[in-house]
């Protein structure tokens, strides 16, 4: 082979091409999945529709209500296993203070007794799912170690907000594992069941909060490299089995788990897909003992049940609760959701009273 020290543009292009081929060969499974996706996008014309839609878009389209446009829709009020019996919006007029969250501040407790649930400090008047109380009250757990797991929704927004709220309780240690761009579809990259197994062994939690699925409304390429189109019965079956496997692990370890469904999203199509995923989560959760599904959908919707980026507070001031991508939550949005979640979760777990609140605890 002739060796030349002179680098020419053609040589550079050739070098780049060869290196790219080698990297692609080494990452063949990922490449195959990507190529399948790209081929489908090209053949279905979706890629051109996406590019075309981006050309002039200035304002996001107003979302339809999930019920009016979505598949697998149910009445929001029947989607939750939990109930918020008391949303004391009028009792607190100030927004949740981030400064107090890590301090000696009292938890949002409605009273002195253990059985009282925290009062939701939500000046933005978010809606809570309203479900009749369960006929029989399950025995309450006094959690000592809570593990929060999920995708970017746990890495930011809801995850840290819930951690900040939970760690105010003296007897509770909180561990959070939020991993960007993960879920139950691309298990070859990141397998949540294996990761959870390790986390359970390492941290030994007795309470688990799961919030994920934002990256999952895509096709699945199963082991035989067959493409399972999103939303088809085949897709639902495979996806549900993966979720089921994940939940089985939790159940086997006798951990009280809470699956927080995804909130309403800002794009119609994505909203429909998330709704499909949420119903699988809810369905699988109901099959496993010790798993409770919390419907976050209506919490961050506006008064008509539609998507909203801003929520109006008591003084008429509008506060941003969703990130610019209309998927993720801001810290305020995350805090509202975590308050509503805790309010509901206290039907199943025992949260301590004001005098048991400590500061410097993980």
């Amino acid at each position: 082979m002739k060796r030349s020290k002179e680098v020419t543009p053609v040589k550079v292009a050739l070098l780049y091409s060869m290196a790219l081929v080698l990297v692609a060969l080494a990452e063949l499974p990922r490449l195959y999945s990507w190529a399948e996706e790209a081929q489908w996008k090209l053949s279905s014309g979706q890629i051109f529709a996406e590019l075309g839609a981006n050309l002039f878009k200035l304002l996001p389209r107003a979302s339809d209500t999930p019920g009016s446009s979505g598949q697998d829709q149910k009445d929001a009020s029947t989607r939750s296993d939990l109930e918020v019996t008391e949303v004391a919006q009028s009792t607190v007029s100030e927004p949740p203070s981030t400064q107090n969250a890590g301090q000696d501040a009292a938890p949002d407790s409605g009273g002195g007794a253990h059985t009282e649930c925290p009062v939701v400090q939500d000046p933005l008047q978010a809606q809570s799912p309203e479900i009749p109380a369960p006929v029989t009250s399950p025995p309450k757990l006094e959690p000592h170690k809570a593990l929060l797991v999920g995708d970017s929704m746990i890495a930011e927004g809801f995850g840290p907000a819930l951690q900040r709220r939970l760690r105010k309780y003296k007897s509770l240690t909180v561990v959070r594992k939020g991993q960007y761009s993960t879920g139950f579809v691309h298990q070859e990259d990141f397998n949540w069941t294996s990761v959870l197994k390790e986390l359970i062994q390492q941290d030994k939690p007795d309470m688990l909060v799961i919030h994920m699925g934002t990256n999952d409304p895509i096709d699945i390429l199963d082991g035989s490299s067959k493409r399972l189109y999103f939303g088809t019965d085949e897709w639902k079956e495979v996806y549900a089995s993966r979720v089921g496997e994940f939940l089985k692990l939790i159940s086997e370890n006798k951990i009280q788990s809470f699956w927080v469904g995804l909130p309403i999203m800002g794009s119609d199509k994505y909203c429909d897909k998330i709704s499909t995923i949420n119903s699988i989560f809810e369905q699988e959760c109901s099959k496993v003992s010790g798993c409770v599904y919390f419907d976050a959908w209506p919490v961050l919707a506006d008064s008509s049940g539609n998507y909203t980026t801003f929520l109006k507070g008591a003084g008429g001031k509008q506060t941003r609760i969703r990130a610019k991508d209309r998927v993720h939550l801001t810290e305020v949005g995350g805090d509202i959701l975590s308050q509503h979640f805790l309010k509901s979760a206290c039907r199943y777990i025992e949260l301590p009273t004001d005098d048991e609140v400590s500061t410097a605890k993980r």
Partner: protein
Amino acid sequence: MSPISFEFALFFLIVLWMNWALRGRGSAYRGFLLAANTLFYASQSTSLVFLPFGVGISNYLFALLISRTKERTLRRIWLCADICINLSFLAFFKYFEFLYHALDSILLPTGLNLHIPLIELYFPIGVSFFTFQGISYCIDVYRDQQKLVRNPVDVLLFVSFFPTILSGPIMRAGQFVPQIDKPDCDSRSLQDAFGLILSGLFKKLVISSYLSEHIVRDVFQVPAANSSLTVLLGVYAYSIEIYCDFSGYSDIAIGTAQLMGFRLPQNFQVPYGVCNMQEFWRHWHISFSTWLRDYLYIPLGGNKKGRLRKYANLMITMVLGGLWHGPHSRFLLWGGLHGMVLALTHSIADIRKSRLSAGKLTKGVAVRSWSVWPSVFKAGAWFSTFSLVSFLWVFFRAEDSSRAMEVFQAVFSFNAVGAGFEPWILPALAAGLIIQFIGPYAIHSFSRVQQRMPVPLQAALLALFCILIIKLGPAGIPPFIYFQF
């Protein structure tokens, strides 16, 4: 299409071959590059794909008007109009929500309320970068009419050049436009480009992502959950994270442009190796800090109108530089504090200079006293500067000022209880610091080694490094920090 995705790698493969096939073919090349820029920007899931072109056309027209107008006042009016239009793009897309809330806060005490709903606008990614490029072009033409670009397509290419449109480096038309017809590349720069891209990938995927995921995020989201030492390390880790994230992006942008025959300005030059804040701003986000110097600080009077005016100008420049990142109190505070520190550094230097000239302080004394412990003094100055920069980053990164205070409180509570840190954090921090010193040498050495190899072996080596970096990176990669600006 993220610059660190397989889609981009494939897109760039086509662009690279076509780039060199069409180079020198005038309009055909321009048409191709414009199409590539449009496609890339459209693929960002962004809105208003034509916005950069709107900015380009508006700047082209105003520059033309400025160059053809003889009367000074009228030229100034055209320039002001151009700047206002560019800034109104920025204000509309970036500061609308802030302005709405500001107006609402003003009206609320008077009993009036803004009854119009707060509309949500799509954020055109890179708007802060390409509008600044547009402004710089018009000001350049205003200052020197020879800098007028005759071909409007060239201005469009300058504003929308795909390697830089998302997060810079912020270019000047005078640097970029001549390279459209005459590529500025040689054998070494072409070979170095691969090293730059690898360096950028390593910084972003390995160091920045690791620190973000394993310490920074937790420390800034729930500071009190961590021990004081962890929070302190988290503060330093964010310094390294933002450097590796942003300079990593810059390396990739400069490398891809270099492969196409375009030489871009440097954006970082060992910013954490400096011993004072003045030096820091000469080495950090260079294309932005020189933009602020040339188009804001100097027009404000710079250091030519007395000391007090100089300090005020520094303060104004840094506050506006902070607000350029977004309409948030944390950026205002960060910029303001940097302004104060810079003004203080300048004032100490000025006092020292005047005392020297008055003979009250002799150079010899200072040199002798420092020469006793030169290394210790230098190390102390370096550590103080690095620590100061890192602590100021807290205001930039924290959700708001109360969270920043929580971080400081967690550091200075000297609390041993709380979450610790993984042992790999320390090597990652060290690697982030060291890479800025050895990076350029490593890139040149890599190029030299590569040049001695046959092309297939070079490709194998490149691919090997690439795969190693991918394997070392996390499963989910957080987006580039500067994409939000």
